[in-house]
């Protein structure tokens, strides 16, 4: 079966993001970029499915500027077979991303779509579910275990308070949570090999998808700063302050 994995180029998760002084957006100038951590988990899961003989081909797709090729190459180095870049300089909202992915799904006809539950830049947690609605596919969101059995997939989901398992008819969409797996590191020979794997570039226009924006970014502000408080001398003083000053005990 064919697996499609969607990945996004985002700020590296170790970098502290800063808001621009004019509050127009965050400042991403000269900031280290990387594959979104949840997308890495999606790639890893697809590659493991291939290693188990469940998946026959792993196709990775990304939407973004030309440099997003780097993240596709990373996925190819981790074991994906070929890449598709939908090149656009525009900042897309989730619905547009879902519409573009729907066009890729129609063309590629994957049995399983794997993607991160959210990206660590916009933190939306929407695209997988939107793609599900647009294609009619079932969804296993926030997955911590994925088991393909014949023409269905059982997905264990991390929900508030525990775990829940759903059975989905294929083709289906799975969005990954942290516990699904621990992504491997790409080896140097595989990084070299990835450079020769096919990477096709297309565009929203080529896919016949009109991009529309409905959300205007009014401003971006830093969160309220916390002031460092006081140091207490001992546990007794701590308990006294929590009871009488903060009144939280």
């Amino acid at each position: 079966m064919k697996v499609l994995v969607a990945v996004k180029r985002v700020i590296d998760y170790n970098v502290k993001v800063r808001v621009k002084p004019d509050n127009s957006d965050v400042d991403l100038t000269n900031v280290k970029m990387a594959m979104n951590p949840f997308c890495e988990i999606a790639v890893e899961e697809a590659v493991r499915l291939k290693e188990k003989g469940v998946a026959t081909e792993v196709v990775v797709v990304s939407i973004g500027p030309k440099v997003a090729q780097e993240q596709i190459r990373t996925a190819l180095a981790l074991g994906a077979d070929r890449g598709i870049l939908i090149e656009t300089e525009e900042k897309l909202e989730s619905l547009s991303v879902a519409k573009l992915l729907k066009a890729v799904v129609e063309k590629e006809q994957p049995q399983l779509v794997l993607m991160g539950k959210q990206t660590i830049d916009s933190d939306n947690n929407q695209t997988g579910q939107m793609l599900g609605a647009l294609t009619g596919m079932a969804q296993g969101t926030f997955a911590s275990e994925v088991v393909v059995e014949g023409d269905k997939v059982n997905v264990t989901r991390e929900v508030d308070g525990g775990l829940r398992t759903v059975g989905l008819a294929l083709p289906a969409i799975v969005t990954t949570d942290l516990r699904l797996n621990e992504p491997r590191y790409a080896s140097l020979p595989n990084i070299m090999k990835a450079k020769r794997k096919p990477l096709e570039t297309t565009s929203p226009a080529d896919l016949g998808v009109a991009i529309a924006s409905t959300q205007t970014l009014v401003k971006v502000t830093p969160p309220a700063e916390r002031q460092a408080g006081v140091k207490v001398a001992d546990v007794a003083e701590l308990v006294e302050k929590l009871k009488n000053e903060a009144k939280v005990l």
Partner: protein
Amino acid sequence: MSILVVAEHDNSALKGATLNTVAAAAAIGGDVTVLVAGSGCQAVAEAAAKVAGVSKVLVADNAVYEHQLGEVLGELVADVAKGYTHVLAPATTTGKDFLPRTAALLDVNMLSDVVEVVSADTFSRPIYAGNAIATYQSADAIKVLTVRTTAFDAVAAEGGSAAVETVDFVSGYDKAAFVGEELAQSDRPELTAAEVVVSGGRGMGNGDNFSMLYSLADKLGAAVGASRAAVDAGFVPNDLQVGQTGKIVAPGLYMAVGISGAIQHLAGMKDSKVIVAINKDEEAPIFQVADYGLVADLFEAVPELEKLV
């Protein structure tokens, strides 16, 4: 303005997250309708009708809604939403699962984890794990939002007397089925909903030492969390992780024990009302965000704390 709030419940009781979401609806202003979708959920509908500020309750009581699968709720809410200007759900794992499906079916965008209502079409939400707050103005015909419950004080559960009506729409979606669930049987509150959270970091030394924190947590009625360092070291499972890539919490009291305070961790807890840090390294960055810092050996301080609270 007419606002549809989708209730969070377990078919027998209305969950508190609904009250925070109604509060966000009240901040927008207008008629508030609560939709209760479930199976055998009449008691929930009655509870929803008593919530202050709710003018109408819609009940979709059918076996297909028993497990509130995202696919079926997504269809139902998209059908019901058509008469409304806004659709709100709490940003729980249920709300996050179905509401984007609803938005896509309505051909509109969505705003997740809203923390402030600026006006009827303008809302603020955290991005980059809370390291920035973005304000968006939405031009969508129907505004679809999930609400971060910790950002809105719950409305009163009593005081209203809304009319209850039934919804006829029955989703025929059949590609997804409930298989089973394992809900934590702990008496401790859920990490993301707890009023008090006690978290441990690499300073705990090993997994066994976390029993100290569980013991303290039980005395405080608290949930237990952990830093990514503690999870990566294998002390505790991943689902306890508080931080940018784990759970975002904002309890009334957050106790960070043996946690240095990496940016990654701070992103997940810095909206807590009161932060206590216990760490033997007085230079630890956690002290820069802590309201009360105690420089001490946690292996002495935690047992003593348990005795005194």
